[in-house]
Protein backbone atom coordinates (compact mmCIF):
# COMPACT_ATOMS: atom_id res chain seq x y z
CA UNK A 1 0.00 0.00 0.00
CA UNK A 2 2.90 2.33 -0.41
CA UNK A 3 2.70 4.83 -3.20
CA UNK A 4 5.20 7.53 -3.86
CA UNK A 5 4.76 10.82 -5.60
CA UNK A 6 6.47 11.11 -8.90
CA UNK A 7 9.81 12.81 -9.00
CA UNK A 8 8.24 15.56 -11.09
CA UNK A 9 5.80 16.52 -8.37
CA UNK A 10 8.53 16.39 -5.76
CA UNK A 11 10.52 18.84 -7.83
CA UNK A 12 7.62 21.23 -8.28
CA UNK A 13 6.25 20.97 -4.77
CA UNK A 14 9.14 22.65 -3.03
CA UNK A 15 7.28 25.82 -2.32
CA UNK A 16 6.01 26.84 1.07
CA UNK A 17 2.63 26.21 2.60
CA UNK A 18 0.44 29.11 1.61
CA UNK A 19 3.39 31.19 0.39
CA UNK A 20 3.77 29.64 -3.04
CA UNK A 21 0.56 28.58 -4.66
CA UNK A 22 -0.19 26.14 -7.47
CA UNK A 23 -1.81 27.74 -10.45
CA UNK A 24 -5.16 26.00 -10.84
CA UNK A 25 -7.82 24.66 -8.50
CA UNK A 26 -8.08 20.92 -7.82
CA UNK A 27 -10.52 18.97 -9.95
CA UNK A 28 -12.00 15.49 -9.56
CA UNK A 29 -9.96 12.36 -8.98
CA UNK A 30 -8.45 13.52 -5.72
CA UNK A 31 -5.64 11.58 -4.15
CA UNK A 32 -6.57 8.79 -1.76
CA UNK A 33 -5.45 9.36 1.78
CA UNK A 34 -5.21 6.60 4.37
CA UNK A 35 -8.07 6.08 6.82
CA UNK A 36 -7.72 6.15 10.58
CA UNK A 37 -8.00 2.36 10.76
CA UNK A 38 -4.70 2.12 8.86
CA UNK A 39 -2.79 3.76 11.71
CA UNK A 40 -0.39 1.08 13.00
CA UNK A 41 -0.93 -0.29 16.49
CA UNK A 42 2.58 0.33 17.76
CA UNK A 43 4.59 3.11 19.37
CA UNK A 44 4.73 5.09 16.13
CA UNK A 45 0.99 4.65 15.65
CA UNK A 46 0.40 6.06 19.13
CA UNK A 47 2.34 9.17 18.16
CA UNK A 48 0.34 9.47 14.92
CA UNK A 49 -2.92 9.29 16.88
CA UNK A 50 -1.63 11.88 19.32
CA UNK A 51 -0.82 14.15 16.37
CA UNK A 52 -4.33 13.65 15.05
CA UNK A 53 -5.81 14.59 18.43
CA UNK A 54 -3.69 17.75 18.57
CA UNK A 55 -4.69 18.59 15.00
CA UNK A 56 -8.40 18.21 15.79
CA UNK A 57 -8.57 19.77 19.27
CA UNK A 58 -5.51 21.95 19.43
CA UNK A 59 -6.58 24.02 22.41
CA UNK A 60 -7.16 20.86 24.42
CA UNK A 61 -4.08 18.84 23.48
CA UNK A 62 -1.54 21.66 23.04
CA UNK A 63 -3.04 24.06 25.53
CA UNK A 64 0.23 25.74 26.56
CA UNK A 65 0.91 26.86 22.99
CA UNK A 66 -2.53 28.05 21.87
CA UNK A 67 -3.90 31.53 22.49
CA UNK A 68 -7.25 31.40 20.70
CA UNK A 69 -10.24 29.17 19.97
CA UNK A 70 -8.96 27.66 16.74
CA UNK A 71 -7.83 24.14 15.89
CA UNK A 72 -5.64 23.09 12.96
CA UNK A 73 -8.57 21.27 11.36
CA UNK A 74 -10.68 24.43 11.21
CA UNK A 75 -8.79 25.52 8.09
CA UNK A 76 -6.97 22.32 7.05
CA UNK A 77 -10.18 20.45 6.30
CA UNK A 78 -10.81 16.73 6.68
CA UNK A 79 -8.19 16.55 9.43
CA UNK A 80 -5.50 17.86 7.12
CA UNK A 81 -6.43 15.59 4.21
CA UNK A 82 -8.45 17.81 1.90
CA UNK A 83 -6.88 19.05 -1.30
CA UNK A 84 -6.98 22.80 -1.69
CA UNK A 85 -7.11 23.51 2.05
CA UNK A 86 -3.31 23.39 2.47
CA UNK A 87 -3.31 19.66 3.32
CA UNK A 88 -0.84 18.46 5.90
CA UNK A 89 0.54 15.58 3.82
CA UNK A 90 1.52 17.94 1.00
CA UNK A 91 3.03 20.43 3.42
CA UNK A 92 5.17 17.64 4.83
CA UNK A 93 6.61 17.07 1.36
CA UNK A 94 7.35 20.75 0.88
CA UNK A 95 10.05 21.30 3.50
CA UNK A 96 12.81 22.23 4.07
CA UNK A 97 12.11 25.33 2.00
CA UNK A 98 13.05 28.99 1.83
CA UNK A 99 10.33 31.33 3.14
CA UNK A 100 10.22 35.02 2.35
CA UNK A 101 8.37 35.51 5.64
CA UNK A 102 11.58 35.01 7.65
CA UNK A 103 14.19 35.04 4.88
CA UNK A 104 15.63 31.62 5.61
CA UNK A 105 15.24 27.92 4.93
CA UNK A 106 12.70 26.43 7.34
CA UNK A 107 12.26 22.79 8.29
CA UNK A 108 8.75 21.32 8.53
CA UNK A 109 8.92 21.50 12.33
CA UNK A 110 9.86 25.18 12.12
CA UNK A 111 6.93 25.76 9.80
CA UNK A 112 4.66 24.14 12.41
CA UNK A 113 6.10 26.50 15.02
CA UNK A 114 4.88 29.44 12.94
CA UNK A 115 1.36 27.99 12.84
CA UNK A 116 1.32 28.14 16.64
CA UNK A 117 2.82 31.64 16.75
CA UNK A 118 0.48 33.26 14.21
CA UNK A 119 -2.57 31.21 13.26
CA UNK A 120 -3.02 29.89 16.79
CA UNK A 121 -2.00 33.23 18.32
CA UNK A 122 0.12 31.31 20.80
CA UNK A 123 3.73 30.33 21.42
CA UNK A 124 6.01 28.11 19.37
CA UNK A 125 6.59 24.71 21.01
CA UNK A 126 10.36 24.16 21.20
CA UNK A 127 11.89 21.94 18.51
CA UNK A 128 11.74 18.33 19.68
CA UNK A 129 8.69 19.00 21.83
CA UNK A 130 6.35 15.97 21.78
CA UNK A 131 3.64 18.20 20.28
CA UNK A 132 5.73 18.91 17.19
CA UNK A 133 6.91 15.28 17.03
CA UNK A 134 3.27 14.10 17.12
CA UNK A 135 2.15 16.52 14.40
CA UNK A 136 5.12 15.62 12.22
CA UNK A 137 4.41 11.91 12.74
CA UNK A 138 0.79 12.40 11.70
CA UNK A 139 1.85 14.34 8.58
CA UNK A 140 4.52 11.77 7.67
CA UNK A 141 2.18 8.82 8.18
CA UNK A 142 -0.48 10.43 6.01
CA UNK A 143 1.93 11.18 3.19
CA UNK A 144 3.69 7.82 3.35
CA UNK A 145 0.43 5.89 2.98
CA UNK A 146 -1.27 8.16 0.47
CA UNK A 147 -2.04 7.24 -3.08
CA UNK A 148 -1.24 10.59 -4.58
CA UNK A 149 -2.43 11.66 -8.01
CA UNK A 150 0.63 13.40 -9.40
CA UNK A 151 -1.33 15.26 -12.06
CA UNK A 152 -3.34 17.28 -9.61
CA UNK A 153 -2.05 20.41 -7.92
CA UNK A 154 -3.68 19.63 -4.59
CA UNK A 155 -1.19 21.12 -2.23
CA UNK A 156 -1.37 24.58 -0.69
CA UNK A 157 -4.33 26.70 -1.59
CA UNK A 158 -5.21 27.21 -5.27
CA UNK A 159 -4.46 30.71 -6.43
CA UNK A 160 -7.25 33.16 -7.20
CA UNK A 161 -7.29 35.74 -10.01
CA UNK A 162 -6.87 39.38 -9.03
CA UNK A 163 -10.26 40.97 -8.33
CA UNK A 164 -12.10 42.70 -11.20
CA UNK A 165 -12.81 45.72 -9.03
CA UNK A 166 -11.01 46.56 -5.78
CA UNK A 167 -12.47 44.54 -2.88
CA UNK A 168 -15.15 46.33 -0.89
CA UNK A 169 -15.98 46.12 2.81
CA UNK A 170 -19.63 46.95 2.15
CA UNK A 171 -20.09 44.31 -0.56
CA UNK A 172 -18.18 41.86 1.61
CA UNK A 173 -20.56 42.53 4.47
CA UNK A 174 -23.48 41.44 2.27
CA UNK A 175 -21.66 38.32 1.08
CA UNK A 176 -20.85 37.51 4.71
CA UNK A 177 -24.46 37.92 5.84
CA UNK A 178 -25.74 35.70 3.04
CA UNK A 179 -23.16 32.94 2.98
CA UNK A 180 -21.06 32.91 6.14
CA UNK A 181 -23.03 34.19 9.15
CA UNK A 182 -25.07 30.96 9.28
CA UNK A 183 -22.06 29.12 10.69
CA UNK A 184 -19.56 31.77 11.81
CA UNK A 185 -22.21 33.98 13.42
CA UNK A 186 -23.36 37.51 12.60
CA UNK A 187 -20.56 38.82 14.83
CA UNK A 188 -17.89 36.53 13.31
CA UNK A 189 -17.28 34.84 16.62
CA UNK A 190 -18.11 31.31 15.48
CA UNK A 191 -20.38 28.81 17.20
CA UNK A 192 -19.91 26.17 19.87
CA UNK A 193 -21.64 22.91 20.66
CA UNK A 194 -23.53 22.64 23.95
CA UNK A 195 -20.42 21.23 25.68
CA UNK A 196 -18.35 24.29 24.73
CA UNK A 197 -16.47 22.59 21.88
CA UNK A 198 -15.76 25.12 19.10
CA UNK A 199 -17.45 23.83 15.95
CA UNK A 200 -17.34 26.92 13.72
CA UNK A 201 -14.20 29.00 14.36
CA UNK A 202 -14.16 32.72 15.16
CA UNK A 203 -12.93 34.71 12.15
CA UNK A 204 -11.81 37.90 13.87
CA UNK A 205 -11.50 39.36 17.34
CA UNK A 206 -9.41 38.22 20.29
CA UNK A 207 -10.15 34.49 19.88
CA UNK A 208 -9.08 34.25 16.23
CA UNK A 209 -5.75 34.14 14.33
CA UNK A 210 -3.43 37.12 14.74
CA UNK A 211 -2.18 39.70 12.25
CA UNK A 212 0.85 37.61 11.36
CA UNK A 213 -1.16 34.63 10.06
CA UNK A 214 -1.40 33.83 6.36
CA UNK A 215 -5.18 34.08 6.58
CA UNK A 216 -4.85 37.76 7.53
CA UNK A 217 -3.69 38.38 3.94
CA UNK A 218 -6.42 39.14 1.42
CA UNK A 219 -5.03 37.00 -1.40
CA UNK A 220 -4.69 33.92 0.83
CA UNK A 221 -8.03 34.42 2.53
CA UNK A 222 -9.81 35.01 -0.80
CA UNK A 223 -8.21 31.92 -2.34
CA UNK A 224 -9.07 29.78 0.68
CA UNK A 225 -12.65 31.03 0.80
CA UNK A 226 -13.17 30.60 -2.94
CA UNK A 227 -11.96 26.99 -2.83
CA UNK A 228 -13.41 25.81 0.45
CA UNK A 229 -16.30 27.96 1.66
CA UNK A 230 -19.12 27.66 2.53
CA UNK A 231 -18.30 24.18 3.77
CA UNK A 232 -19.45 21.66 1.10
CA UNK A 233 -20.12 24.48 -1.38
CA UNK A 234 -16.52 25.36 -2.25
CA UNK A 235 -16.30 27.16 -5.61
CA UNK A 236 -19.85 28.52 -5.36
CA UNK A 237 -18.82 32.13 -4.67
CA UNK A 238 -17.57 34.26 -7.55
CA UNK A 239 -13.94 35.42 -7.40
CA UNK A 240 -15.17 38.95 -6.69
CA UNK A 241 -17.39 37.75 -3.83
CA UNK A 242 -14.45 35.81 -2.36
CA UNK A 243 -12.23 38.92 -2.47
CA UNK A 244 -14.97 41.13 -1.03
CA UNK A 245 -15.73 38.81 1.86
CA UNK A 246 -12.01 38.27 2.53
CA UNK A 247 -11.72 42.06 2.75
CA UNK A 248 -14.66 42.17 5.16
CA UNK A 249 -13.16 39.41 7.35
CA UNK A 250 -9.64 40.86 7.34
CA UNK A 251 -11.07 44.35 7.73
CA UNK A 252 -11.79 43.56 11.38
CA UNK A 253 -9.32 43.74 14.21
CA UNK A 254 -7.64 40.68 15.62
CA UNK A 255 -4.78 39.88 18.02
CA UNK A 256 -1.59 41.89 17.55
CA UNK A 257 1.21 40.65 15.33
CA UNK A 258 3.76 38.96 17.65
CA UNK A 259 6.46 40.90 15.75
CA UNK A 260 4.88 44.18 16.89
CA UNK A 261 7.60 46.75 17.53
CA UNK A 262 5.47 49.10 19.63
CA UNK A 263 4.37 51.14 16.62
CA UNK A 264 1.68 50.14 14.13
CA UNK A 265 3.32 52.25 11.40
CA UNK A 266 6.69 50.66 11.94
CA UNK A 267 5.24 47.13 12.18
CA UNK A 268 3.38 47.77 8.97
CA UNK A 269 6.52 49.03 7.24
CA UNK A 270 8.53 46.03 8.40
CA UNK A 271 6.06 43.15 8.02
CA UNK A 272 2.92 44.29 6.21
CA UNK A 273 4.17 46.29 3.26
CA UNK A 274 1.77 44.52 0.93
CA UNK A 275 -1.52 45.49 -0.63
CA UNK A 276 -2.81 42.16 0.65
CA UNK A 277 -2.53 43.25 4.30
CA UNK A 278 -4.96 45.74 5.81
CA UNK A 279 -2.79 46.06 8.93
CA UNK A 280 -2.36 49.76 9.73
CA UNK A 281 -5.11 50.77 7.27
CA UNK A 282 -8.22 52.72 8.09
CA UNK A 283 -11.17 50.35 7.49
CA UNK A 284 -14.75 51.03 8.58
CA UNK A 285 -13.61 53.85 10.84
CA UNK A 286 -10.78 51.94 12.61
CA UNK A 287 -7.05 51.84 12.05
CA UNK A 288 -6.45 48.10 12.06
CA UNK A 289 -3.76 46.77 14.39
CA UNK A 290 -4.34 49.80 16.60
CA UNK A 291 -7.27 48.47 18.59
CA UNK A 292 -6.38 47.97 22.28
CA UNK A 293 -8.26 44.66 22.06
CA UNK A 294 -5.71 43.46 19.53
CA UNK A 295 -2.84 43.95 22.00
CA UNK A 296 -3.66 40.96 24.21
Amino acid at each position, binding site marked *: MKYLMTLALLMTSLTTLGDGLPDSPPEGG*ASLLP*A*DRDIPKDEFGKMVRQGQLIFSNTGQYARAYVGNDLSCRNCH*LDQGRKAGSAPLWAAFLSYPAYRSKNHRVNTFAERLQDCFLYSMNGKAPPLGDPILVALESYAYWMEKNAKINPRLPERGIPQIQAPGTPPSYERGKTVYANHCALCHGVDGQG*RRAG*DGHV*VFPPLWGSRSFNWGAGMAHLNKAAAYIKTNMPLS*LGGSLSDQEAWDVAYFMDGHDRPQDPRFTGSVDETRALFHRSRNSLYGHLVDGHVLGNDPASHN
Partner: protein
Amino acid sequence: MNRTKYRARGKVFLKALLFLPLAFGAHAETSPPHALILGVGEGSGFSRAACAGCHGSEGEGNAAGGIPGLRGLPSTYLEKQLHAFASGERKNPIMNSIAQALTADGITHAANYYAQLPPRSRPLGAGDESGHELAVHGRWSENVPSCDDCHGPDGKGVGENFPALNGQPALYLENQLRAFQNGSRPPGPLRLMENISRKLSAQDIRAVSLYYSGSSAVTPGGQP
Protein backbone atom coordinates in the same frame (compact mmCIF):
# COMPACT_ATOMS: atom_id res chain seq x y z
CA MET B 1 -62.28 29.94 11.33
CA ASN B 2 -62.50 29.07 14.99
CA ARG B 3 -64.78 26.19 14.27
CA THR B 4 -62.34 24.78 11.74
CA LYS B 5 -59.60 25.00 14.32
CA TYR B 6 -61.67 23.17 16.92
CA ARG B 7 -62.62 20.48 14.47
CA ALA B 8 -59.01 20.08 13.41
CA ARG B 9 -57.93 19.97 17.00
CA GLY B 10 -60.39 17.19 17.63
CA LYS B 11 -58.96 15.31 14.71
CA VAL B 12 -55.50 15.72 16.08
CA PHE B 13 -56.58 14.48 19.43
CA LEU B 14 -58.10 11.35 17.92
CA LYS B 15 -54.96 10.66 15.95
CA ALA B 16 -52.85 11.19 19.02
CA LEU B 17 -55.01 8.69 20.89
CA LEU B 18 -54.35 6.16 18.17
CA PHE B 19 -50.66 6.31 18.94
CA LEU B 20 -50.93 6.42 22.70
CA PRO B 21 -50.76 2.66 23.28
CA LEU B 22 -47.65 2.50 21.11
CA ALA B 23 -45.89 5.18 23.08
CA PHE B 24 -46.90 4.08 26.53
CA GLY B 25 -46.38 0.44 25.67
CA ALA B 26 -42.80 1.12 24.78
CA HIS B 27 -41.98 3.53 27.57
CA ALA B 28 -44.40 2.73 30.37
CA GLU B 29 -41.67 2.26 32.93
CA THR B 30 -40.20 5.73 32.38
CA SER B 31 -43.43 7.70 32.01
CA PRO B 32 -44.05 10.12 34.87
CA PRO B 33 -47.69 10.54 35.85
CA HIS B 34 -47.85 14.16 34.66
CA ALA B 35 -47.48 12.96 31.11
CA LEU B 36 -50.82 11.24 31.39
CA ILE B 37 -52.63 14.51 31.81
CA LEU B 38 -54.95 14.72 28.88
CA GLY B 39 -56.04 18.23 28.34
CA VAL B 40 -55.97 20.71 25.58
CA GLY B 41 -53.22 22.71 26.43
CA GLU B 42 -50.69 25.06 27.50
CA GLY B 43 -51.95 27.39 24.85
CA SER B 44 -53.55 27.82 21.49
CA GLY B 45 -53.94 24.25 20.42
CA PHE B 46 -50.75 22.87 21.92
CA SER B 47 -51.33 19.78 23.98
CA ARG B 48 -48.34 18.17 25.54
CA ALA B 49 -50.29 14.96 25.82
CA ALA B 50 -51.25 14.97 22.18
CA CYS B 51 -47.60 15.35 21.13
CA ALA B 52 -46.60 12.73 23.70
CA GLY B 53 -48.86 10.26 21.93
CA CYS B 54 -46.28 9.89 19.20
CA HIS B 55 -43.15 11.67 20.42
CA GLY B 56 -43.14 9.97 23.80
CA SER B 57 -44.13 11.17 27.23
CA GLU B 58 -40.73 12.81 27.66
CA GLY B 59 -40.27 13.88 24.05
CA GLU B 60 -37.86 11.02 23.53
CA GLY B 61 -39.30 9.87 20.19
CA ASN B 62 -40.13 6.36 19.09
CA ALA B 63 -37.53 4.28 17.32
CA ALA B 64 -39.86 1.68 15.86
CA GLY B 65 -42.16 4.30 14.40
CA GLY B 66 -39.33 6.48 13.10
CA ILE B 67 -40.71 9.35 15.18
CA PRO B 68 -38.10 11.90 16.22
CA GLY B 69 -37.16 12.86 19.73
CA LEU B 70 -37.86 16.52 20.36
CA ARG B 71 -36.13 17.01 23.72
CA GLY B 72 -33.60 19.79 23.77
CA LEU B 73 -33.92 20.70 20.10
CA PRO B 74 -33.60 24.47 19.58
CA SER B 75 -36.94 26.26 19.84
CA THR B 76 -36.38 28.28 16.67
CA TYR B 77 -35.64 25.07 14.79
CA LEU B 78 -38.78 23.35 16.13
CA GLU B 79 -40.85 26.41 15.37
CA LYS B 80 -39.53 26.60 11.82
CA GLN B 81 -40.36 22.93 11.28
CA LEU B 82 -43.91 23.30 12.61
CA HIS B 83 -44.49 26.27 10.32
CA ALA B 84 -43.09 24.26 7.41
CA PHE B 85 -45.47 21.41 8.28
CA ALA B 86 -48.36 23.87 8.51
CA SER B 87 -47.60 25.36 5.10
CA GLY B 88 -47.04 21.94 3.57
CA GLU B 89 -43.45 22.73 2.58
CA ARG B 90 -42.34 19.87 4.78
CA LYS B 91 -44.51 16.93 3.89
CA ASN B 92 -45.83 14.44 6.42
CA PRO B 93 -49.55 13.67 6.44
CA ILE B 94 -49.87 13.44 10.21
CA MET B 95 -47.72 16.45 11.07
CA ASN B 96 -49.25 18.57 8.30
CA SER B 97 -52.71 18.30 9.81
CA ILE B 98 -51.44 18.69 13.38
CA ALA B 99 -49.43 21.81 12.56
CA GLN B 100 -52.35 23.30 10.69
CA ALA B 101 -54.43 22.91 13.83
CA LEU B 102 -51.97 24.93 15.89
CA THR B 103 -52.05 28.71 16.08
CA ALA B 104 -48.77 30.59 15.86
CA ASP B 105 -48.86 30.81 19.66
CA GLY B 106 -49.44 27.09 19.93
CA ILE B 107 -46.40 26.47 17.73
CA THR B 108 -44.29 28.72 19.95
CA HIS B 109 -45.54 26.97 23.10
CA ALA B 110 -44.81 23.54 21.68
CA ALA B 111 -41.34 24.58 20.51
CA ASN B 112 -40.45 26.22 23.82
CA TYR B 113 -41.73 23.29 25.82
CA TYR B 114 -39.54 20.72 24.04
CA ALA B 115 -36.55 23.04 23.75
CA GLN B 116 -36.29 23.39 27.52
CA LEU B 117 -36.16 19.63 28.18
CA PRO B 118 -32.50 18.60 28.58
CA PRO B 119 -31.31 16.53 25.61
CA ARG B 120 -30.26 12.93 26.10
CA SER B 121 -27.33 11.64 24.15
CA ARG B 122 -26.28 8.08 23.48
CA PRO B 123 -23.03 6.33 22.72
CA LEU B 124 -22.91 6.08 18.95
CA GLY B 125 -22.93 3.25 16.43
CA ALA B 126 -20.05 1.03 17.43
CA GLY B 127 -19.12 -1.43 14.71
CA ASP B 128 -20.50 0.46 11.74
CA GLU B 129 -17.43 1.60 9.95
CA SER B 130 -18.93 3.24 6.86
CA GLY B 131 -21.46 5.17 8.92
CA HIS B 132 -18.75 6.30 11.32
CA GLU B 133 -16.55 7.31 8.40
CA LEU B 134 -19.21 9.58 6.86
CA ALA B 135 -20.23 10.98 10.22
CA VAL B 136 -16.72 11.83 11.38
CA HIS B 137 -14.72 12.31 8.16
CA GLY B 138 -17.30 12.86 5.44
CA ARG B 139 -16.33 12.14 1.84
CA TRP B 140 -14.36 15.17 0.78
CA SER B 141 -13.51 13.73 -2.64
CA GLU B 142 -17.14 14.63 -3.42
CA ASN B 143 -17.22 17.72 -1.20
CA VAL B 144 -19.27 15.97 1.44
CA PRO B 145 -18.20 17.28 4.84
CA SER B 146 -18.59 15.11 7.89
CA CYS B 147 -21.97 15.40 9.64
CA ASP B 148 -20.08 16.32 12.82
CA ASP B 149 -18.45 19.25 11.02
CA CYS B 150 -21.74 21.14 11.33
CA HIS B 151 -23.84 19.14 13.79
CA GLY B 152 -21.01 19.07 16.32
CA PRO B 153 -19.04 16.30 18.04
CA ASP B 154 -21.12 13.10 18.22
CA GLY B 155 -23.85 14.98 16.34
CA LYS B 156 -25.10 16.64 19.52
CA GLY B 157 -26.19 19.76 17.65
CA VAL B 158 -24.89 23.31 17.21
CA GLY B 159 -26.93 26.49 17.54
CA GLU B 160 -30.33 26.98 15.96
CA ASN B 161 -29.68 25.62 12.50
CA PHE B 162 -27.83 22.37 13.09
CA PRO B 163 -30.10 20.13 15.19
CA ALA B 164 -28.83 17.17 17.18
CA LEU B 165 -28.70 13.90 15.26
CA ASN B 166 -27.47 11.93 18.26
CA GLY B 167 -29.98 9.33 19.37
CA GLN B 168 -32.61 10.09 16.74
CA PRO B 169 -34.26 6.94 15.37
CA ALA B 170 -32.41 5.52 12.36
CA LEU B 171 -35.66 5.33 10.43
CA TYR B 172 -36.35 9.01 11.09
CA LEU B 173 -32.87 10.11 9.97
CA GLU B 174 -33.12 7.92 6.90
CA ASN B 175 -36.50 9.41 6.00
CA GLN B 176 -35.17 12.95 6.43
CA LEU B 177 -32.14 12.39 4.21
CA ARG B 178 -34.47 10.99 1.56
CA ALA B 179 -36.83 13.92 2.05
CA PHE B 180 -33.94 16.35 1.50
CA GLN B 181 -33.05 14.39 -1.64
CA ASN B 182 -36.54 14.46 -3.14
CA GLY B 183 -37.59 17.89 -1.93
CA SER B 184 -40.38 16.80 0.40
CA ARG B 185 -38.56 18.72 3.11
CA PRO B 186 -37.25 22.29 2.58
CA PRO B 187 -33.56 22.24 1.64
CA GLY B 188 -32.42 24.04 4.79
CA PRO B 189 -30.19 27.11 5.02
CA LEU B 190 -27.98 27.64 1.94
CA ARG B 191 -29.63 24.47 0.56
CA LEU B 192 -26.84 22.66 2.41
CA MET B 193 -28.75 19.49 3.17
CA GLU B 194 -30.31 19.20 -0.29
CA ASN B 195 -26.86 19.48 -1.80
CA ILE B 196 -25.23 17.02 0.58
CA SER B 197 -28.06 14.45 0.61
CA ARG B 198 -27.97 14.19 -3.18
CA LYS B 199 -24.39 12.96 -2.99
CA LEU B 200 -25.36 10.09 -0.69
CA SER B 201 -26.32 6.60 -1.85
CA ALA B 202 -29.11 4.61 -0.21
CA GLN B 203 -26.41 2.60 1.52
CA ASP B 204 -24.65 5.74 2.80
CA ILE B 205 -27.95 6.99 4.19
CA ARG B 206 -28.68 3.73 5.92
CA ALA B 207 -25.20 3.49 7.44
CA VAL B 208 -25.00 7.04 8.72
CA SER B 209 -28.56 6.93 10.07
CA LEU B 210 -27.79 3.77 12.00
CA TYR B 211 -24.61 5.37 13.33
CA TYR B 212 -26.36 8.39 14.83
CA SER B 213 -29.27 6.35 16.17
CA GLY B 214 -26.81 4.60 18.47
CA SER B 215 -28.59 1.44 17.45
CA SER B 216 -26.76 -1.79 18.10
CA ALA B 217 -28.54 -3.52 15.23
CA VAL B 218 -25.58 -2.92 12.98
CA THR B 219 -23.51 -5.64 11.40
CA PRO B 220 -19.74 -5.17 11.38
CA GLY B 221 -18.61 -3.67 8.10
CA GLY B 222 -21.54 -1.34 7.87
CA GLN B 223 -23.80 -3.47 5.67
CA PRO B 224 -27.51 -2.77 6.11
